[in-house]
């Protein structure tokens, strides 16, 4: 159970400023969506949250329930991460791959114990992967693969989960399944950050939102509050209009 605090974050790649003075807080059990056009810094922010790269200035603090706080790079193994495109060993079985997620709990010279195997089995059935458990990663569909990857991340029992464009290449039903899964995880008390290039996803499936643009300042806050047509038009360079249909907000692109 963790709170994420981003304070005055600044980051730039050589010659390109990505994030300027970004501040944001996400509490226990929340889903934060990162939206913005390509190149606006979504992946960068996720990598900063992971601790793989360091900000130029500002800080990210992860606060656990018992008051301990630490930086992302200090929380080895406690943050689950799904890259947008992941190189994986396509010959590996689903179960073996998921088991690798147990690494933070397995000693340097050990192999998975019965406990680890049980955790893997539990996750396999929770994510409805039972039939695929011994299939090779290269043989399953995109949607199934995504569930497998989430299972791998969950094997770490992470309080913070970062997903980079988790539904980009999925069809609608799989998409729905993933977001449903994320909701369940949120309800379990985990903190989730995901990026998407479709603001509709954020609108439907997030509590908080960070809207990024390479030229405009970042907007952060509760999703319902910050997503409006004017901002979307400015940040996405497309004329948009938001309608309410059957009590659901829908974005129209003109």
């Amino acid at each position: 159970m963790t709170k994420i605090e981003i304070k005055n974050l600044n980051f730039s790649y050589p010659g390109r400023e990505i994030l300027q003075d970004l501040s944001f807080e996400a509490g226990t059990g929340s889903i934060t969506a990162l939206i913005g056009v390509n190149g606006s810094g979504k992946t960068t922010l996720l990598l900063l949250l992971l601790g793989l790269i360091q900000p130029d200035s500002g800080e990210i603090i992860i606060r656990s329930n018992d008051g301990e706080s630490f930086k992302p790079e200090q929380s080895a193994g406690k943050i689950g991460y799904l890259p947008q495109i992941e190189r994986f060993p396509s010959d590996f079985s689903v179960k073996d791959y998921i088991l690798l997620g147990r690494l933070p709990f397995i000693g340097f010279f050990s192999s998975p114990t019965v406990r680890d195997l049980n955790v893997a089995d539990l996750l396999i059935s929770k994510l409805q992967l039972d039939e695929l458990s011994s299939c090779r990663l290269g043989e399953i569909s995109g949607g199934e693969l995504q569930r497998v990857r989430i299972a791998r991340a969950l094997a770490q029992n992470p309080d913070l989960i970062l997903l980079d464009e988790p539904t980009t290449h999925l069809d609608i039903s799989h998409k729905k399944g993933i977001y449903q899964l994320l909701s369940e995880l949120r309800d379990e008390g985990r903190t989730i950050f995901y990026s998407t290039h479709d603001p509709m996803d954020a609108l439907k499936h997030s509590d908080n939102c960070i809207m990024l643009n390479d030229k405009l300042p970042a907007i952060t806050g509760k999703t319902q509050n910050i997503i409006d047509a004017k901002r979307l038009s400015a940040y996405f360079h497309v004329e948009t209009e938001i309608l309410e249909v059957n009590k659901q907000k829908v974005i129209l692109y003109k």
Partner: protein
Amino acid sequence: MKNKNTALLICLFLIAVISAGLGRYSLFSDFAELRENPFLADLILDLRLPRIATAVLAGISLTIAGYVMQTVFKNPLADPGVMGVSQAAGFGAALGILYFGQSPLIIKVFSFGFSLLALFLVILFTSRLKLKRILGLVLAGIAVSALFSAGLGLLKYLADPIDQLPNIVFWLLGSISGANWNSFYLLTLITFPLIIFFFIYRWRLNVHMLDEKVTFSLGIGKSWELNLVLAAAVLLTSAIISTTGIIGWVGLIIPNYGHLIAGPHAARSMVFSGIAGGIFLLICDDLSRILLPGEIPIGIFTAFIGSFLFVLLFWKKRDFLYS
């Protein structure tokens, strides 16, 4: 998996026993002859057994080193020398041959020392130039390998074509003809701990097959673990090379077959590959010392059989290639 390994181990043992009975001196006969002919017993004990033991150990070591390199570099075509180890060892040996009177001790020490230097240089380049981990290692490995290869080429050019050059060439082709119990014991001192290390590490090794960002998220952020694994593999390779010269193809082709037969996961296929490597090199060495009156450098057989196995591998995996 246990069954496969045990079966293979028994296979290795049988082949080793048969090999002990084979040699230029006599073909396998019954044990009675051993009692009657103490000379044969001496031959087997002092000449054949240490050679068999060295061949098996070299086969296992080179295969495991190759297996580890292929896993870490996520490349089924990597071999133990990918970080410039082989070229550096060859350079060191050539130095010993050229300028230190071909003293066998110097040759051993130099080839071992220079391959460690190569590893050091690779890690230095990667960290100083702040290159991306695996890609950086590959590029640095190519650079260091090329550097020592050029140096080796120069030494070959300077070498006396009568006394020195043939020795360099013979060394580069690899040979287990000089094996004896002393050199074997020395070899085990270095290789046994490393092999045991990899055996215990074999489950965790697979983590290196994952995406670098994912391994970071799993807690292997510091490069020391990767460097440690690489250093261990390089040490294993150098120890063998400094004793036998450069024996190619073993570390490249056998791990691929290990994967094919025993699966992709190191926990199951590394041991299998290792034993298979021991069998492969033992057979090659038997051919080296028995086929003709003269000693044939073992690298010739490993290349010959290895390339054949290589093509066969492509044939077996042709679906994958065409998809």
